[in-house]
């Protein structure tokens, strides 16, 4: 046995410790801790909302109306956050809306992330003509205003969550692909990848076994931003009538409806609006915190 000692290198990668260290780093940042809490709250509330949307028989929670108890302010009996213009419970509607936002944001981001990973790692790892073609496609797509695409698509197909989802995913994949390609290029030059190649490990296997796990951190960071962005885009389009269509209670839709009652009962708009702002705030600051943990060099733009 050699005389060398086992040294401790602070940037840990062993799961349990890494998580602990990451959390320590994350919570050292005050804003990021708030963000993490908000994001966690969003996930909890959103999962509840998703259950309400998906499990049949629960829709009464957000559709049950009582026209005689319409436009109640928050803290009304039985209605913590008040009721809307049809006397439906705002708290449940916001929970449901958060669920729709969560499902939408996560689904769209997951799809674009998957596409971005495939395209980006192929372009970055293989290089050459594949890279030239795929990079062309990435540059072509990246930065295209999602809202513009969604407006045109929404006009073409009939407007709805699906269309907005398609619009968002068909742009954001390029954001992931762009970053992943850059990471793949830098990882490709790493000696452990060369070592794997020397061992005869196939390209796809190297991508799956070496590249993707090593990009996971930065991809997740980008993911949190894109979830937030997808939610905002959906809400904006719902607001101008090109997103989720009524009576689907997405947050944007709730705000759009509530806006009409601003003079009578501002809460109908303010409650979902605040929820929306908190979600985005949470995801963004949480993303910032994660970024600092995973990779300080990664910038949003």
């Amino acid at each position, binding site marked *: 046995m050699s005389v060398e000692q086992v040294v401790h290198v602070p940037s840990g990668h062993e799961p349990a410790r890494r998580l602990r260290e990451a959390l320590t780093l994350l919570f050292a940042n005050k804003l990021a801790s708030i963000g993490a809490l908000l994001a966690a709250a969003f996930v909890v509330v959103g999962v509840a909302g998703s259950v309400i949307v998906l499990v049949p028989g629960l829709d009464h929670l957000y559709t*049950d109306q009582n*026209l005689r108890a*319409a436009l109640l302010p928050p803290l009304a009996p039985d209605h913590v956050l008040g009721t809307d213009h*049809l006397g439906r419970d705002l708290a449940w509607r916001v929970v449901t809306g958060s669920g729709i936002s969560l499902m939408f944001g996560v689904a769209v981001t997951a799809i674009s992330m998957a596409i971005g990973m495939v395209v980006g790692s192929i372009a970055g790892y293989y290089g050459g003509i594949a890279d030239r073609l795929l990079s062309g496609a990435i540059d072509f797509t990246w930065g295209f205003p999602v809202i513009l695409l969604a407006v045109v698509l929404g006009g073409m197909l009939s407007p709805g969550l699906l269309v907005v989802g398609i619009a968002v995913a068909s742009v954001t994949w390029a954001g992931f692909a762009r970053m992943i390609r850059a990471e793949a290029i830098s990882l490709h030059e790493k000696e452990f990848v060369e070592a794997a190649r020397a061992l005869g490990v196939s390209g796809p296997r190297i991508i799956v076994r070496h590249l993707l796990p090593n990009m996971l951190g930065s991809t997740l960071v980008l993911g949190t931003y894109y979830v937030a962005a997808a939610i905002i885009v959906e809400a904006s389009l719902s607001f101008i*009538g090109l997103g989720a*269509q009524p009576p689907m209670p997405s947050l944007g839709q709730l705000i*759009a*409806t509530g806006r009409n009652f601003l003079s009578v009962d501002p809460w109908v708009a303010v409650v979902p609006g605040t929820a929306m702002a908190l979600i985005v705030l949470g995801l963004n600051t949480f993303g910032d915190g994660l970024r600092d943990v995973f990779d300080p060099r990664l910038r949003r733009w």
Partner: protein
Amino acid sequence: MTQTEESELRDTIEQYRNARLTRRDFVQRAAVLGISASVAASILAACGGGGGGGGTTTGEEGQPVQGGVLRMGYDRAFQKLDNVVGPWADEPFTAIYEVPIIRDPGGKFVSSVAEAWEFSSDGLTLSMKIREGLKFHSGAPLTAANVAEDFNIFRTTGVTANFWAPVKNVEEGENNSVVLTLSKTNYGLIETISTLFQSIHNEASRKAAGEGWGATTVDATGPFTLKTFKPASEVVVERWPDYPGSGVPFVTNKGPAYLDSIRWVPILEPANRANEIETGSVDIVKSPAAQDISRLQSNDDLVVLELQELSNYFITIDRTRGALGQPGVAQAMSHAIDRQALVDTVFFGHAVPTYGPIFPAYRWYDPGVEAYNEYDPDKARDLLKSAGLSELRFTLLTQNQPIQVQVLEAVGGMLREVGITMEVKAVEDAAFFPDMFAGKPDAFMFKWLWESPTDNMRFFGRVPSWDYNGNPPKSMAGIDAWESAATEEQLEKACRQVQLAWAEELPFIPLVTQSLVWVHHKRVHNFRPTQTSIYPLFNDVWIEA
């Protein structure tokens, strides 16, 4: 209502009749007595036959001032101001066009471009005397020949060509008159002729304008000429200095208009309409959001006028498919709907429930319809049960407009109470109409807005087909009676007959008629919308500098 209150109300009405109260004061006092604004409006409409139906009284107005720009906030996006094949008639129609015959505030037909008209004794000939000395904006003289030419266009390619079907021939008669020959008696034609799609225009100019008709060019006889047409952002009309004066008896200004121009902007978000009249970016706004009306009423700078809109929200279900075709299903749905609750919540009281196909302020409205479709969820459940349905599920198509969606959300909740699940699909107009006409949806909701309610029964009974609407025998017979009436009495009788039949058979399920609310700034004078026209006339309107 107690006796004192009742007598107080009678006093109030009397004061209003004697022009000692403005319309606004009346509505306010009525409100104190616990009368909703819409009911007050109906009362006003009922007692407004004497010429002040629009509400404002004469003494108040003072000396008209020449000049100024009237800024109007409109509640929808503009379409081409095309009187022949336009998709609908927008507010500027009454500023730039004139119809042959017009309804006065009491519903009586009075002169406009035509100064007199008469059916022959057999009811098969209608002759119409055209006013002398009229001309078009372009300067060309308007004669009976022009009117005859227009009528022939209307009955062949016009929007309302269907309703002209009984007309065999139109030609110029003697003495600047137009003679219409009918294949069968149809006294109701007069209703059609007084609607905005029969506005008189210069056909030669229309031909020359091509696609530009109603957008770049309008050559008609109204007191204003079209200046700017940007349908999404503004429509501007200007005073026509050569206007020979109105032939309409209840228009007091017999010369060119007082206003220099009128500028309309579409304000599509209901909440913004209140905002914009309050901030003063417009002088008049149509249909503010119902929830904002009380706030506007309490604003001393503003005058709020409220009438029943010549419209109705209704739902039609496709009876050719499965459960929806079971007898009693439409009735069950109708009984499940608490229309008064809709009025109170969605419209904040600024609407009236409708139990039949026509709004209550119509001159031949038959209150008998109210017995058929009262709110009775138990009855609804019974009807469903006897139709053998334990649950019912269908999709309903609607135009994507906030108020429409709100109405349907509320209705959906009510239907759910009796075990009917209604999924609402709100789409843009471009997607709505083709589906509706193709009879694709299980059900659809629509709001008609038209001066002749019976036209709507005739039309929407057939859309997409009578089959779709369940071939209701009594209603169809009623329509036939309407279409063959030879005199006004027969027409009225047919109208009552068809209403009752409709309420019983429900080819479509009526919901509510919302209030037509106009809000104008106090510096606007003589703005007098009437209960019988969808849009007001602008020749009398003037504005303080």
